[in-house]
Protein backbone atom coordinates (compact mmCIF):
# COMPACT_ATOMS: atom_id res chain seq x y z
CA UNK A 1 0.00 0.00 0.00
CA UNK A 2 1.12 3.55 -0.66
CA UNK A 3 1.02 5.76 2.46
CA UNK A 4 -2.24 7.47 3.41
CA UNK A 5 -3.66 9.38 6.33
CA UNK A 6 -6.65 8.01 8.23
CA UNK A 7 -9.48 10.00 9.81
CA UNK A 8 -12.68 8.72 11.31
CA UNK A 9 -15.59 10.99 10.41
CA UNK A 10 -17.87 11.79 13.33
CA UNK A 11 -20.67 13.17 11.16
CA UNK A 12 -21.80 13.30 7.55
CA UNK A 13 -20.85 16.99 7.37
CA UNK A 14 -17.37 16.25 8.65
CA UNK A 15 -17.02 13.38 6.17
CA UNK A 16 -18.03 15.63 3.26
CA UNK A 17 -15.60 18.33 4.37
CA UNK A 18 -12.75 15.82 4.66
CA UNK A 19 -13.82 13.98 1.51
CA UNK A 20 -13.40 17.13 -0.58
CA UNK A 21 -9.63 16.83 -0.27
CA UNK A 22 -7.51 15.63 -3.19
CA UNK A 23 -6.83 11.90 -3.57
CA UNK A 24 -9.29 11.11 -0.77
CA UNK A 25 -11.38 7.95 -0.52
CA UNK A 26 -14.21 7.03 1.81
CA UNK A 27 -13.69 3.79 3.74
CA UNK A 28 -16.55 1.51 4.79
CA UNK A 29 -15.97 -2.09 5.77
CA UNK A 30 -12.82 -2.28 3.67
CA UNK A 31 -13.63 -5.60 2.03
CA UNK A 32 -12.93 -4.26 -1.45
CA UNK A 33 -10.94 -1.08 -0.82
CA UNK A 34 -8.31 -2.65 1.46
CA UNK A 35 -7.65 -5.26 -1.21
CA UNK A 36 -7.33 -2.57 -3.87
CA UNK A 37 -4.98 -0.56 -1.64
CA UNK A 38 -2.82 -3.62 -1.06
CA UNK A 39 -2.58 -4.26 -4.80
CA UNK A 40 -1.89 -0.52 -5.33
CA UNK A 41 -4.86 -0.38 -7.70
CA UNK A 42 -6.10 2.45 -5.51
CA UNK A 43 -3.52 4.95 -4.27
CA UNK A 44 -5.32 7.58 -2.17
CA UNK A 45 -3.33 9.83 0.12
CA UNK A 46 -6.20 10.12 2.61
CA UNK A 47 -8.89 7.75 3.86
CA UNK A 48 -12.02 9.04 5.57
CA UNK A 49 -13.62 6.26 7.61
CA UNK A 50 -17.41 6.57 7.33
CA UNK A 51 -18.20 3.16 8.82
CA UNK A 52 -19.25 4.83 12.07
CA UNK A 53 -21.97 6.92 10.41
CA UNK A 54 -25.60 5.85 10.20
CA UNK A 55 -26.22 2.12 10.23
CA UNK A 56 -29.88 2.26 11.21
CA UNK A 57 -32.54 0.36 9.27
CA UNK A 58 -35.72 2.36 9.55
CA UNK A 59 -39.22 1.31 8.53
CA UNK A 60 -40.86 4.27 6.79
CA UNK A 61 -44.53 5.21 7.31
CA UNK A 62 -45.35 4.50 3.66
CA UNK A 63 -44.12 0.91 3.90
CA UNK A 64 -40.63 1.50 2.52
CA UNK A 65 -37.35 1.01 4.35
CA UNK A 66 -34.45 3.44 4.77
CA UNK A 67 -31.08 1.74 5.21
CA UNK A 68 -28.20 3.74 6.67
CA UNK A 69 -25.17 3.63 4.38
CA UNK A 70 -23.05 1.90 7.02
CA UNK A 71 -25.50 -0.90 7.81
CA UNK A 72 -23.68 -4.16 7.26
CA UNK A 73 -24.78 -6.63 4.62
CA UNK A 74 -25.63 -9.07 7.43
CA UNK A 75 -27.76 -6.50 9.26
CA UNK A 76 -29.80 -5.84 6.12
CA UNK A 77 -30.22 -9.52 5.26
CA UNK A 78 -31.38 -10.49 8.74
CA UNK A 79 -33.76 -7.57 9.25
CA UNK A 80 -37.29 -8.88 9.79
CA UNK A 81 -39.02 -6.30 7.59
CA UNK A 82 -36.52 -6.81 4.76
CA UNK A 83 -37.06 -10.57 4.90
CA UNK A 84 -40.85 -10.20 4.88
CA UNK A 85 -41.28 -7.35 2.39
CA UNK A 86 -38.24 -7.69 0.12
CA UNK A 87 -37.16 -11.34 0.29
CA UNK A 88 -35.18 -10.99 -2.94
CA UNK A 89 -32.84 -8.62 -1.11
CA UNK A 90 -32.12 -11.05 1.71
CA UNK A 91 -31.72 -13.84 -0.87
CA UNK A 92 -29.29 -11.73 -2.90
CA UNK A 93 -27.17 -10.72 0.06
CA UNK A 94 -26.93 -14.22 1.50
CA UNK A 95 -25.90 -15.48 -1.96
CA UNK A 96 -22.91 -13.14 -1.95
CA UNK A 97 -19.41 -13.40 -0.49
CA UNK A 98 -18.94 -15.20 2.85
CA UNK A 99 -20.44 -14.63 6.30
CA UNK A 100 -17.27 -12.90 7.48
CA UNK A 101 -17.31 -10.49 4.55
CA UNK A 102 -21.04 -9.82 4.93
CA UNK A 103 -20.39 -8.93 8.58
CA UNK A 104 -17.85 -6.29 7.53
CA UNK A 105 -19.22 -4.95 4.23
CA UNK A 106 -21.48 -1.90 4.37
CA UNK A 107 -24.46 -1.09 2.17
CA UNK A 108 -22.74 1.84 0.45
CA UNK A 109 -19.47 -0.06 0.21
CA UNK A 110 -21.21 -2.93 -1.55
CA UNK A 111 -22.68 -0.48 -4.06
CA UNK A 112 -19.33 1.25 -4.59
CA UNK A 113 -17.13 -1.84 -4.91
CA UNK A 114 -15.25 -1.63 -8.18
CA UNK A 115 -16.58 -3.20 -11.32
CA UNK A 116 -13.65 -5.46 -12.05
CA UNK A 117 -12.15 -8.58 -13.60
CA UNK A 118 -9.01 -10.63 -13.10
CA UNK A 119 -7.15 -8.62 -15.74
CA UNK A 120 -7.83 -5.45 -13.73
CA UNK A 121 -6.02 -7.08 -10.79
CA UNK A 122 -3.13 -8.33 -12.93
CA UNK A 123 -1.17 -5.15 -12.42
CA UNK A 124 2.12 -6.34 -13.82
CA UNK A 125 1.02 -8.69 -16.56
CA UNK A 126 -2.04 -7.36 -18.38
CA UNK A 127 -3.34 -4.29 -20.10
CA UNK A 128 -6.50 -2.79 -18.61
CA UNK A 129 -8.33 0.39 -19.55
CA UNK A 130 -10.03 0.49 -16.17
CA UNK A 131 -6.69 0.45 -14.34
CA UNK A 132 -4.71 2.50 -16.87
CA UNK A 133 -7.01 4.44 -19.24
CA UNK A 134 -6.04 4.11 -22.88
CA UNK A 135 -3.78 1.11 -22.30
CA UNK A 136 -6.02 -1.47 -23.96
CA UNK A 137 -7.99 -4.47 -22.68
CA UNK A 138 -6.51 -7.95 -22.56
CA UNK A 139 -9.80 -9.49 -21.43
CA UNK A 140 -11.58 -8.90 -24.73
CA UNK A 141 -9.38 -11.46 -26.48
CA UNK A 142 -8.41 -13.34 -23.34
CA UNK A 143 -10.03 -15.71 -20.89
CA UNK A 144 -13.42 -14.06 -20.70
CA UNK A 145 -15.79 -16.73 -19.49
CA UNK A 146 -16.95 -14.51 -16.62
CA UNK A 147 -17.26 -11.30 -18.58
CA UNK A 148 -20.08 -9.11 -19.84
CA UNK A 149 -22.51 -9.92 -22.65
CA UNK A 150 -24.66 -6.79 -22.39
CA UNK A 151 -23.70 -3.12 -22.54
CA UNK A 152 -19.97 -3.75 -22.89
CA UNK A 153 -17.68 -1.65 -25.05
CA UNK A 154 -14.45 -2.14 -26.98
CA UNK A 155 -12.63 -0.73 -23.95
CA UNK A 156 -14.03 -2.88 -21.12
CA UNK A 157 -15.98 -6.12 -20.65
CA UNK A 158 -15.85 -6.41 -16.84
CA UNK A 159 -18.95 -7.12 -14.76
CA UNK A 160 -20.21 -5.57 -11.53
CA UNK A 161 -19.87 -8.34 -8.94
CA UNK A 162 -22.54 -7.32 -6.42
CA UNK A 163 -25.51 -9.58 -5.76
CA UNK A 164 -27.16 -7.05 -3.45
CA UNK A 165 -27.20 -4.41 -6.18
CA UNK A 166 -29.08 -6.69 -8.57
CA UNK A 167 -31.92 -6.88 -6.07
CA UNK A 168 -31.71 -3.14 -5.41
CA UNK A 169 -31.98 -2.48 -9.15
CA UNK A 170 -35.06 -4.67 -9.44
CA UNK A 171 -36.67 -3.03 -6.39
CA UNK A 172 -36.16 0.48 -7.77
CA UNK A 173 -33.98 1.43 -4.79
CA UNK A 174 -33.10 5.09 -4.34
CA UNK A 175 -29.63 6.19 -3.28
CA UNK A 176 -29.46 9.21 -0.96
CA UNK A 177 -26.36 11.27 -1.69
CA UNK A 178 -24.83 14.29 0.01
CA UNK A 179 -22.21 16.69 -1.27
CA UNK A 180 -20.83 20.12 -0.36
CA UNK A 181 -23.90 21.85 -1.78
CA UNK A 182 -26.68 19.70 -0.40
CA UNK A 183 -28.40 16.41 -0.96
CA UNK A 184 -29.77 14.55 -3.94
CA UNK A 185 -31.53 11.26 -4.59
CA UNK A 186 -30.61 8.99 -7.48
CA UNK A 187 -32.12 5.73 -8.68
CA UNK A 188 -29.62 2.92 -8.16
CA UNK A 189 -30.02 2.05 -11.84
CA UNK A 190 -28.65 5.52 -12.68
CA UNK A 191 -25.72 5.34 -10.28
CA UNK A 192 -23.53 2.78 -12.03
CA UNK A 193 -22.21 3.48 -15.52
CA UNK A 194 -21.73 1.35 -18.58
CA UNK A 195 -18.05 1.39 -19.61
CA UNK A 196 -18.29 3.22 -22.96
CA UNK A 197 -14.83 4.73 -23.48
CA UNK A 198 -14.30 5.54 -19.78
CA UNK A 199 -14.27 2.24 -17.89
CA UNK A 200 -12.07 3.84 -15.23
CA UNK A 201 -15.21 5.61 -14.00
CA UNK A 202 -17.68 3.18 -12.43
CA UNK A 203 -20.40 5.56 -11.22
CA UNK A 204 -22.03 8.91 -11.84
CA UNK A 205 -21.03 10.20 -8.41
CA UNK A 206 -18.90 13.32 -8.47
CA UNK A 207 -15.65 13.43 -6.44
CA UNK A 208 -16.35 13.83 -2.73
CA UNK A 209 -20.01 12.84 -2.91
CA UNK A 210 -21.09 10.51 -0.11
CA UNK A 211 -23.86 7.92 -0.09
CA UNK A 212 -25.76 8.43 3.17
CA UNK A 213 -28.64 5.95 2.81
CA UNK A 214 -30.41 3.52 0.51
CA UNK A 215 -34.18 3.73 0.31
CA UNK A 216 -36.33 0.76 -0.61
CA UNK A 217 -39.57 2.26 -1.92
CA UNK A 218 -42.81 0.67 -0.75
CA UNK A 219 -43.45 -2.20 -3.15
CA UNK A 220 -46.06 -4.70 -1.93
CA UNK A 221 -45.43 -6.97 -4.91
CA UNK A 222 -41.87 -7.55 -3.67
CA UNK A 223 -43.20 -9.82 -0.93
CA UNK A 224 -43.43 -12.34 -3.78
CA UNK A 225 -39.88 -12.08 -5.02
CA UNK A 226 -36.67 -14.03 -5.11
CA UNK A 227 -33.07 -14.12 -6.31
CA UNK A 228 -31.42 -16.95 -8.15
CA UNK A 229 -27.68 -17.11 -8.60
CA UNK A 230 -25.86 -19.51 -10.90
CA UNK A 231 -22.14 -19.93 -10.27
CA UNK A 232 -19.27 -22.34 -10.78
CA UNK A 233 -19.36 -23.62 -7.21
CA UNK A 234 -22.36 -23.63 -4.92
CA UNK A 235 -21.06 -21.05 -2.44
CA UNK A 236 -18.61 -18.16 -2.18
CA UNK A 237 -18.27 -17.45 -5.90
CA UNK A 238 -19.29 -14.59 -8.16
CA UNK A 239 -22.37 -15.02 -10.34
CA UNK A 240 -22.11 -16.32 -13.86
CA UNK A 241 -25.73 -15.27 -14.14
CA UNK A 242 -28.15 -14.08 -11.50
CA UNK A 243 -31.77 -13.01 -11.63
CA UNK A 244 -33.74 -10.91 -9.15
CA UNK A 245 -37.45 -10.90 -9.86
CA UNK A 246 -40.84 -10.03 -8.42
CA UNK A 247 -44.20 -10.63 -10.00
CA UNK A 248 -47.74 -9.48 -9.32
CA UNK A 249 -50.56 -11.39 -10.94
CA UNK A 250 -54.14 -10.34 -11.50
CA UNK A 251 -55.95 -13.49 -12.37
CA UNK A 252 -53.73 -15.07 -15.00
CA UNK A 253 -52.26 -11.85 -16.29
CA UNK A 254 -49.16 -10.04 -15.15
CA UNK A 255 -50.12 -6.77 -13.49
CA UNK A 256 -46.55 -5.81 -12.69
CA UNK A 257 -43.14 -7.43 -12.84
CA UNK A 258 -39.59 -6.53 -11.84
CA UNK A 259 -36.51 -8.23 -13.25
CA UNK A 260 -32.80 -7.46 -12.94
CA UNK A 261 -29.76 -9.48 -13.99
CA UNK A 262 -26.30 -9.91 -12.49
CA UNK A 263 -23.13 -11.24 -14.08
CA UNK A 264 -24.01 -9.84 -17.48
CA UNK A 265 -22.86 -6.23 -17.54
CA UNK A 266 -20.66 -3.46 -16.16
CA UNK A 267 -23.58 -2.49 -13.92
CA UNK A 268 -26.52 -4.26 -12.29
CA UNK A 269 -28.81 -4.78 -15.28
CA UNK A 270 -32.45 -3.83 -14.93
CA UNK A 271 -34.35 -5.85 -17.54
CA UNK A 272 -36.61 -3.05 -18.70
CA UNK A 273 -37.38 -4.67 -22.05
CA UNK A 274 -38.39 -7.98 -20.51
CA UNK A 275 -40.59 -6.17 -18.01
CA UNK A 276 -42.28 -4.11 -20.74
CA UNK A 277 -43.00 -7.19 -22.83
CA UNK A 278 -44.63 -8.96 -19.90
CA UNK A 279 -46.86 -6.31 -18.35
CA UNK A 280 -50.50 -6.99 -19.10
CA UNK A 281 -49.77 -10.33 -20.73
CA UNK A 282 -50.66 -13.80 -19.49
CA UNK A 283 -48.19 -15.45 -17.12
CA UNK A 284 -47.29 -18.44 -19.27
CA UNK A 285 -43.93 -19.92 -20.27
CA UNK A 286 -44.20 -18.72 -23.87
CA UNK A 287 -44.42 -15.13 -22.70
CA UNK A 288 -41.58 -15.56 -20.23
CA UNK A 289 -39.43 -16.95 -23.07
CA UNK A 290 -40.34 -14.05 -25.33
CA UNK A 291 -39.45 -11.57 -22.60
CA UNK A 292 -36.08 -13.25 -22.03
CA UNK A 293 -35.40 -13.21 -25.79
CA UNK A 294 -36.25 -9.51 -25.94
CA UNK A 295 -33.90 -8.66 -23.09
CA UNK A 296 -30.97 -10.63 -24.49
CA UNK A 297 -31.54 -9.59 -28.13
CA UNK A 298 -28.64 -7.14 -27.97
CA UNK A 299 -26.31 -9.52 -26.16
CA UNK A 300 -22.87 -9.91 -27.73
CA UNK A 301 -20.75 -12.89 -26.72
CA UNK A 302 -16.99 -12.95 -26.37
CA UNK A 303 -14.82 -16.00 -27.05
CA UNK A 304 -15.67 -17.89 -23.85
CA UNK A 305 -18.99 -16.55 -22.58
CA UNK A 306 -21.63 -17.24 -25.23
CA UNK A 307 -23.16 -19.73 -22.79
CA UNK A 308 -24.20 -16.82 -20.58
CA UNK A 309 -26.78 -15.66 -23.11
CA UNK A 310 -28.74 -18.91 -23.09
CA UNK A 311 -28.15 -19.32 -19.36
CA UNK A 312 -29.59 -15.88 -18.67
CA UNK A 313 -32.65 -16.61 -20.78
CA UNK A 314 -33.28 -19.92 -19.06
CA UNK A 315 -32.72 -18.40 -15.62
CA UNK A 316 -35.24 -15.63 -16.31
CA UNK A 317 -37.85 -18.15 -17.46
CA UNK A 318 -37.20 -20.47 -14.51
CA UNK A 319 -37.44 -17.72 -11.91
CA UNK A 320 -40.58 -16.17 -13.40
CA UNK A 321 -42.21 -19.58 -13.74
CA UNK A 322 -41.46 -20.39 -10.11
CA UNK A 323 -42.76 -17.04 -8.91
CA UNK A 324 -45.91 -17.30 -11.01
CA UNK A 325 -46.56 -20.73 -9.53
CA UNK A 326 -46.49 -22.58 -12.82
CA UNK A 327 -44.11 -25.05 -11.31
CA UNK A 328 -44.26 -26.03 -7.68
CA UNK A 329 -43.22 -22.82 -6.03
CA UNK A 330 -40.36 -23.41 -3.67
CA UNK A 331 -39.49 -20.62 -1.29
CA UNK A 332 -36.09 -20.71 -2.92
CA UNK A 333 -36.09 -20.33 -6.71
Amino acid at each position, binding site marked *: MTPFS*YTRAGSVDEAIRLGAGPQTKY*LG*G*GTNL*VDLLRETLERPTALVDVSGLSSTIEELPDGGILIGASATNTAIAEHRAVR*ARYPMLTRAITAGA*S*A*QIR*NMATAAGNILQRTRCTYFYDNAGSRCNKRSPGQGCDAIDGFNRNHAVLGASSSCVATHPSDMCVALAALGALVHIQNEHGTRVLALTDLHRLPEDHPDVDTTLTPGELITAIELPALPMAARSTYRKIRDRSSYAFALISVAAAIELEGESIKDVRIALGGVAHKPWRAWQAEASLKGNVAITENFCAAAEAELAEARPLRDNAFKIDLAKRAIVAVLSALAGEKSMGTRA
Partner: protein
Amino acid sequence: MTHTVYVNGSEEQLPDDPRVSVLDFLREHLQLAGVKKGCNQGACGACTVLVDGDQRILSCMALAVQYEGRAITSIEGLAKNGSLDPLQQAFIDHDGFQCGYCTPGQICSSIGMSAELRRGVPSHATDDLSTETIDLSHDELRERMSGNLCRCGAYNGIVAAIAESHARANP
Protein backbone atom coordinates in the same frame (compact mmCIF):
# COMPACT_ATOMS: atom_id res chain seq x y z
CA MET B 1 -8.98 9.10 21.61
CA THR B 2 -7.12 6.36 23.38
CA HIS B 3 -5.84 4.73 20.17
CA THR B 4 -6.02 1.32 21.79
CA VAL B 5 -7.80 -1.93 21.10
CA TYR B 6 -8.62 -4.86 23.41
CA VAL B 7 -7.07 -8.12 22.25
CA ASN B 8 -8.04 -11.24 24.17
CA GLY B 9 -8.88 -8.99 27.11
CA SER B 10 -5.68 -6.93 27.12
CA GLU B 11 -5.61 -3.29 26.12
CA GLU B 12 -3.05 -2.83 23.37
CA GLN B 13 -1.67 0.24 21.64
CA LEU B 14 -2.75 0.45 17.99
CA PRO B 15 -0.07 0.96 15.33
CA ASP B 16 0.64 4.48 14.11
CA ASP B 17 0.67 3.38 10.47
CA PRO B 18 -2.96 3.06 9.30
CA ARG B 19 -1.91 0.55 6.62
CA VAL B 20 -1.43 -2.23 9.19
CA SER B 21 -4.18 -4.85 8.97
CA VAL B 22 -5.64 -6.48 12.06
CA LEU B 23 -3.97 -9.66 10.82
CA ASP B 24 -0.48 -8.15 10.69
CA PHE B 25 -1.11 -6.29 13.94
CA LEU B 26 -1.90 -9.55 15.74
CA ARG B 27 0.85 -11.61 14.16
CA GLU B 28 3.71 -9.14 13.78
CA HIS B 29 3.09 -6.57 16.52
CA LEU B 30 1.59 -8.75 19.27
CA GLN B 31 3.24 -12.05 18.28
CA LEU B 32 -0.14 -13.80 18.29
CA ALA B 33 0.75 -16.20 15.50
CA GLY B 34 -2.32 -18.39 15.94
CA VAL B 35 -4.21 -16.30 13.42
CA LYS B 36 -3.00 -17.32 9.97
CA LYS B 37 -2.26 -15.47 6.77
CA GLY B 38 -3.54 -17.66 3.94
CA CYS B 39 -4.42 -15.64 0.86
CA ASN B 40 -4.30 -12.13 2.39
CA GLN B 41 -7.07 -11.15 -0.02
CA GLY B 42 -10.31 -12.25 1.60
CA ALA B 43 -10.71 -15.56 -0.18
CA CYS B 44 -9.71 -18.29 2.29
CA GLY B 45 -10.90 -17.43 5.82
CA ALA B 46 -7.70 -18.54 7.56
CA CYS B 47 -7.40 -15.10 9.19
CA THR B 48 -10.90 -15.13 10.75
CA VAL B 49 -11.09 -13.53 14.20
CA LEU B 50 -13.97 -12.38 16.40
CA VAL B 51 -14.90 -8.76 17.08
CA ASP B 52 -16.88 -7.68 20.15
CA GLY B 53 -17.17 -11.26 21.32
CA ASP B 54 -18.83 -13.20 18.56
CA GLN B 55 -18.82 -11.29 15.28
CA ARG B 56 -16.60 -13.09 12.78
CA ILE B 57 -14.54 -10.97 10.39
CA LEU B 58 -11.56 -11.38 8.07
CA SER B 59 -8.58 -9.77 9.78
CA CYS B 60 -6.68 -9.48 6.48
CA MET B 61 -9.25 -7.05 5.08
CA ALA B 62 -9.54 -5.00 8.27
CA LEU B 63 -7.33 -2.00 8.98
CA ALA B 64 -6.35 -2.13 12.65
CA VAL B 65 -7.06 1.59 13.17
CA GLN B 66 -10.70 0.97 12.27
CA TYR B 67 -11.10 -1.19 15.39
CA GLU B 68 -10.08 1.39 17.96
CA GLY B 69 -11.79 0.79 21.30
CA ARG B 70 -13.23 -2.56 20.24
CA ALA B 71 -12.56 -6.10 21.43
CA ILE B 72 -10.79 -8.63 19.23
CA THR B 73 -10.62 -12.30 20.11
CA SER B 74 -8.14 -14.59 18.38
CA ILE B 75 -7.68 -18.32 18.80
CA GLU B 76 -5.31 -17.60 21.71
CA GLY B 77 -8.20 -16.03 23.63
CA LEU B 78 -10.61 -18.95 23.55
CA ALA B 79 -9.21 -21.25 26.26
CA LYS B 80 -10.45 -20.40 29.75
CA ASN B 81 -8.38 -21.14 32.88
CA GLY B 82 -6.18 -23.52 30.95
CA SER B 83 -9.10 -25.49 29.50
CA LEU B 84 -9.73 -25.58 25.80
CA ASP B 85 -12.98 -24.22 24.44
CA PRO B 86 -15.29 -27.22 23.83
CA LEU B 87 -15.08 -26.53 20.10
CA GLN B 88 -11.28 -26.76 20.19
CA GLN B 89 -11.58 -30.10 21.95
CA ALA B 90 -14.14 -31.29 19.38
CA PHE B 91 -11.70 -30.49 16.56
CA ILE B 92 -9.14 -32.73 18.29
CA ASP B 93 -11.67 -35.50 18.95
CA HIS B 94 -12.86 -35.54 15.32
CA ASP B 95 -9.52 -34.97 13.57
CA GLY B 96 -10.90 -31.69 12.24
CA PHE B 97 -7.59 -30.85 10.59
CA GLN B 98 -4.53 -32.28 8.93
CA CYS B 99 -1.89 -29.56 8.63
CA GLY B 100 -3.78 -27.28 11.02
CA TYR B 101 -3.18 -24.07 9.09
CA CYS B 102 -6.87 -23.26 8.55
CA THR B 103 -7.92 -24.47 12.02
CA PRO B 104 -7.79 -21.21 14.04
CA GLY B 105 -9.90 -19.55 11.37
CA GLN B 106 -12.30 -22.48 11.21
CA ILE B 107 -12.81 -22.41 14.98
CA CYS B 108 -13.27 -18.65 15.28
CA SER B 109 -15.60 -18.72 12.27
CA SER B 110 -17.68 -21.49 13.82
CA ILE B 111 -18.10 -19.51 17.05
CA GLY B 112 -19.31 -16.55 15.01
CA MET B 113 -21.64 -18.84 13.08
CA SER B 114 -23.23 -20.06 16.33
CA ALA B 115 -23.99 -16.49 17.35
CA GLU B 116 -25.57 -15.83 13.94
CA LEU B 117 -27.73 -18.94 14.34
CA ARG B 118 -28.87 -17.80 17.79
CA ARG B 119 -29.94 -14.48 16.24
CA GLY B 120 -31.78 -16.31 13.46
CA VAL B 121 -29.65 -14.84 10.65
CA PRO B 122 -30.73 -16.61 7.45
CA SER B 123 -28.27 -18.10 4.98
CA HIS B 124 -28.37 -19.11 1.33
CA ALA B 125 -29.42 -22.57 2.56
CA THR B 126 -32.37 -21.32 4.60
CA ASP B 127 -35.63 -22.33 2.93
CA ASP B 128 -38.05 -20.19 4.93
CA LEU B 129 -37.01 -16.59 5.54
CA SER B 130 -39.84 -16.06 8.05
CA THR B 131 -38.47 -18.68 10.43
CA GLU B 132 -37.49 -17.57 13.93
CA THR B 133 -35.20 -20.51 14.58
CA ILE B 134 -32.82 -22.21 12.20
CA ASP B 135 -31.69 -25.79 12.67
CA LEU B 136 -28.06 -26.42 11.82
CA SER B 137 -28.66 -28.97 9.09
CA HIS B 138 -25.78 -30.41 7.09
CA ASP B 139 -26.55 -27.97 4.26
CA GLU B 140 -26.78 -24.99 6.62
CA LEU B 141 -23.46 -25.88 8.28
CA ARG B 142 -21.63 -26.29 4.98
CA GLU B 143 -23.07 -23.09 3.53
CA ARG B 144 -22.39 -21.03 6.65
CA MET B 145 -18.79 -22.29 6.88
CA SER B 146 -18.09 -21.89 3.16
CA GLY B 147 -15.91 -18.85 3.79
CA ASN B 148 -13.28 -21.08 5.40
CA LEU B 149 -11.29 -23.24 3.02
CA CYS B 150 -9.24 -26.29 4.02
CA ARG B 151 -6.70 -27.29 1.41
CA CYS B 152 -6.05 -30.61 3.13
CA GLY B 153 -9.70 -31.39 2.61
CA ALA B 154 -10.36 -32.24 6.26
CA TYR B 155 -13.95 -31.14 5.81
CA ASN B 156 -15.54 -34.33 7.14
CA GLY B 157 -13.79 -33.92 10.48
CA ILE B 158 -14.44 -30.18 10.56
CA VAL B 159 -18.15 -30.67 9.94
CA ALA B 160 -18.34 -33.45 12.54
CA ALA B 161 -16.56 -31.34 15.16
CA ILE B 162 -18.79 -28.32 14.61
CA ALA B 163 -21.97 -30.40 14.45
CA GLU B 164 -21.16 -32.20 17.71
CA SER B 165 -20.18 -29.04 19.51
CA HIS B 166 -23.32 -27.29 18.30
CA ALA B 167 -25.54 -30.20 19.35
CA ARG B 168 -24.02 -30.25 22.85
CA ALA B 169 -24.55 -26.52 23.28
CA ASN B 170 -28.12 -26.70 21.94
CA PRO B 171 -29.65 -29.87 23.47
